């Protein structure tokens, strides 16, 4: 059963990890979430709440302890090629030029060379790196490297883009620019995006909906609609709706910061 219109259906997903000492650690308690096609959804939560684990489960890099994740109706049993992955760090291959890094998925999937090359050039243009194809990763800034990683994740034209704190390692200014850049790329490429972040502002600026996680074991506390008009810009941050939603989301985390039982005393 494919839930009505949902491209990614997460049903009662639960994930336990076994620690070295043999204890089991609950990373995700019970998460259900339906993500529509071409939706941009952000997952926010405190560090260690299992939000990255959820992304890895969708990517098929981890297996569920119980529950199910379906993509287009098929249960996820392992990595699949209609997903593009962007990590917290760019994970570029330093011995390859920028262009050849972008071409890695084409090489693995044995795509036709000429059209792959054309597409790679197009993607470099899309992420604003026209003319940087022959450079090596260590000649680029952190923001530029992450753009290469985004171009690479789009190379094999996946319908889903999974991004794990893709701008977490960047400075605030670069991060802001990259957020707007990502929105432009998303509009141009019509992907379903699931982006994990711990920045409330980033989540609101980017997404259609924000899924808020509790601290570990991760559960979904709330899914907040973001009815801000698109295209969004830096000015969106001053929108009254943005400010109100940011306040609401921040409220969730302040709750977490106060240990149980002391809330009334404070």
């Amino acid at each position, binding site marked *: 059963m494919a839930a009505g219109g949902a491209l990614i259906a997460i049903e009662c997903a639960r994930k336990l990890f076994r620690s070295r000492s043999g204890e089991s650690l609950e990373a995700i308690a019970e998460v259900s979430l339906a993500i529509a096609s071409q939706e941009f959804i952000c997952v926010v939560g405190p560090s260690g709440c299992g939000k990255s684990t959820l992304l890895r489960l969708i990517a098929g890099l981890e297996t569920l302890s119980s529950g199910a994740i379906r993509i287009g109706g098929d249960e996820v049993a392992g990595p699949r*090629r209609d997903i593009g*992955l962007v990590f917290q*760090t760019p994970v570029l*291959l*330093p*011995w390859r030029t920028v262009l050849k890094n972008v071409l890695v998925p084409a090489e*693995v999937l044995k795509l036709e060379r000429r059209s792959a090359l054309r597409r790679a050039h197009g993607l470099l243009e899309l992420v604003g790196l026209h003319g940087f194809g022959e450079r090596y990763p260590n000649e680029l800034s952190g923001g530029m490297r992450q753009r290469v990683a985004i171009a690479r994740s789009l190379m094999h034209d996946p319908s889903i883009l999974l991004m794990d704190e893709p701008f977490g390692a960047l400075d605030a200014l670069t991060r802001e620019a990259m957020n707007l850049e990502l929105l432009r790329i998303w509009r141009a490429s019509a992907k379903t995006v699931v982006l994990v972040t711990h920045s409330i502002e980033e989540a609101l600026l980017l997404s259609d909906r924000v899924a808020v996680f509790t601290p570990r074991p991760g559960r979904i506390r709330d899914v907040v609609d973001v009815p801000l008009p698109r295209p969004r810009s830096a000015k969106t941050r001053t929108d009254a709706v943005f400010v109100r939603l940011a306040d609401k989301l921040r409220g969730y985390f302040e709750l977490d910061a106060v240990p149980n039982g002391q809330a009334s005393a404070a």
Partner: protein
Amino acid sequence: MMLAPRAWLDRYAPPAAAGAVLLAAWEYLPSSFGVPVLLMPPPSSVARALWAAQERGLLLENALITLAEALTGFVIGSALAVFFAFLITRSRLIERALMPYLVGFQALPKVALAPLIVVWVGIGIESKITIAAIISFFPVLINAIVGFSTIEAEKIELMRSLVASRWQEFRIVVFPNSLPFIFAGLNVAIVFSITGALVGEFIGADRGLGNLLMQFNFNMDISGMFGVLVVLALMGIALHGTVRFFHRRLVFWAEPERFGPDAH
């Protein structure tokens, strides 16, 4: 790379001057302290001995034989080492089962095997190649195993997320990523391979620099022995320089500290 005359002078003048001083000291000091010229021949007579050996057709021919033995052994030994490292790292279990023996064998001075190899393979060029190969094998093997296992988890996950085959994973990510380690092994192996060929020739051979050295030794031709040492040193520098050249060409992208202790 072309250097400006000034930079050229800065780089080469100090070692050239030191070399000249050392040669002059070697030429004149021993005799002035009463050391017999026969035991400690001056550079001039070493040069004459080299020239004489060359005129008798001994030098270049024997040098080329030793060079061929060392280089062939090095190439075979290193290639096999990379191949075996690939097989061993395919399975954690095999790696864990074999590693203590490999490390143990690595600790054995491989030249001790040389007499055995000469008995098994004969006194021809093949036994020297075998010894050079065995002696080159281990440093490359150990480094390649470490190199194949030392890789960022995300790089592997990137390949897994694309549903890459094990071979694609190895070819696109694991092998290039291991090159700094493999070259650390090759830098050691290339010098070892000359030692291997030479020891093989000491034990039993009718050709090669090792054989020539033994002949000069037999005739108490100390100048000739020094001459062979000079040729061996030049050969070592040339081979090591060749490996260094490829090292820099292929591993230009690595962080300096990952070049290993051997590179500068």
